[in-house]
């Protein structure tokens, strides 16, 4: 027997779980996603205070289609969620605690001192989704002379959001 054949006698196959290849691919695809969309932190990020952060996150996702960035969570030693960040399009919104840094939820302050404008691709579909999820409509969906179709909604704690989509000008 030749030496290499001798070594070859000790070659033994391993038995794999069927899911082994899928798990490996998930690792690769996560790296690919990160490379194709490197996250750019915008220069300005609105920070919005809530009494109940988990409820706010669930609502913002369900009603407005915002997605939490899981790696951006800030959790206390005791496991309490202190701050989260959601993304939509190329923008971010911080979701923080009521009273932190002197910012107040309208639920306790009673005042919405500002609102956030969001441009969406299909404002009609967005409106339907938000209403179905329990958003309170503050101003109905309608066209404006300056070439935009908008509606206004209040979230769970009364923060004011404006959603709009550019429309073709009528000549």
């Amino acid at each position, binding site marked *: *027997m030749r*030496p*290499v*054949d*001798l*070594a*070859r*006698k*000790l*070659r*033994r*196959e*391993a*038995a*794999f*779980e069927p899911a*082994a*290849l899928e*798990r*490996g*691919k*998930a*690792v*690769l*695809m996560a*790296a*690919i996603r990160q*490379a*194709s969309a490197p996250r750019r932190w915008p220069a300005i990020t609105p920070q919005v205070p809530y009494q109940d952060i988990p409820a706010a996150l669930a609502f913002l996702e369900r009603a407005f289609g915002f997605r939490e960035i899981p790696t951006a969570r800030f959790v206390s030693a005791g496991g309490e969620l202190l701050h989260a960040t959601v993304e939509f399009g190329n923008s971010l919104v911080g979701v923080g605690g009521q009273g932190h840094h002197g910012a107040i939820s309208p639920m306790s302050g009673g005042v919405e001192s500002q609102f956030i404008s969001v441009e969406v691709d299909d404002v009609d579909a967005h409106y339907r989704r938000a209403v179905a999820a329990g958003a309170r409509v503050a101003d109905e969906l309608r066209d404006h002379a300056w070439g935009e179709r908008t509606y206004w909604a209040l979230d769970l704690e009364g923060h004011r959001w404006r959603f709009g989509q550019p429309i073709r000008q009528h000549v």
Partner: protein
Amino acid sequence: MVSPPSDAAVIGLSVDEPEAFGVIYDRHAPTVLRFLGRRAGADVAEGLLGDLFRIAFERRKTFDPARASAIPWLYGIGSNLLMKHRRGEARRLRATARMTADEASAKRASTAAHDARLLFPRVADAIEALPDSEREALLLFAWEDLSYQGVAEALELPIGTVRSRLNRARARLRELLEPGGKKRERAR
């Protein structure tokens, strides 16, 4: 009929379009998984597979487009990852040697059986005793059926170096096969 794009073409494309690298996974992950499994067993192999392709993806710009196949390159990344699992690899090899010896001795008459019982554990020990670089070259050549060129690509060595490493590894194994081989080795 249009032939599918080469590995080099796909990897080149993936530099600007990262998603294309998924094709390399689909083409070669089963082969690479079996390679890792032969060396370190199923559990370690499954754990390393995703990392191996993630590292390959991150290094895709350095892939030499003159290479026909990405397989040796992927094996080379795997060889490096396996270095952290040397003990498990050695355990697996010795277990295989015992199994092979048992199978061989069951089939043969007493003298030959005795030889087989001794031989395969000695082969395993000899492989384990090789310097890392020689063992790696030998196993890529003998188990993965890479050509000299393939081993050279995997280990990023000149082909002459691969040839001399394989020759040294062969010589050490040959000692085990020749009567009196052990004595000669001691006399040297």
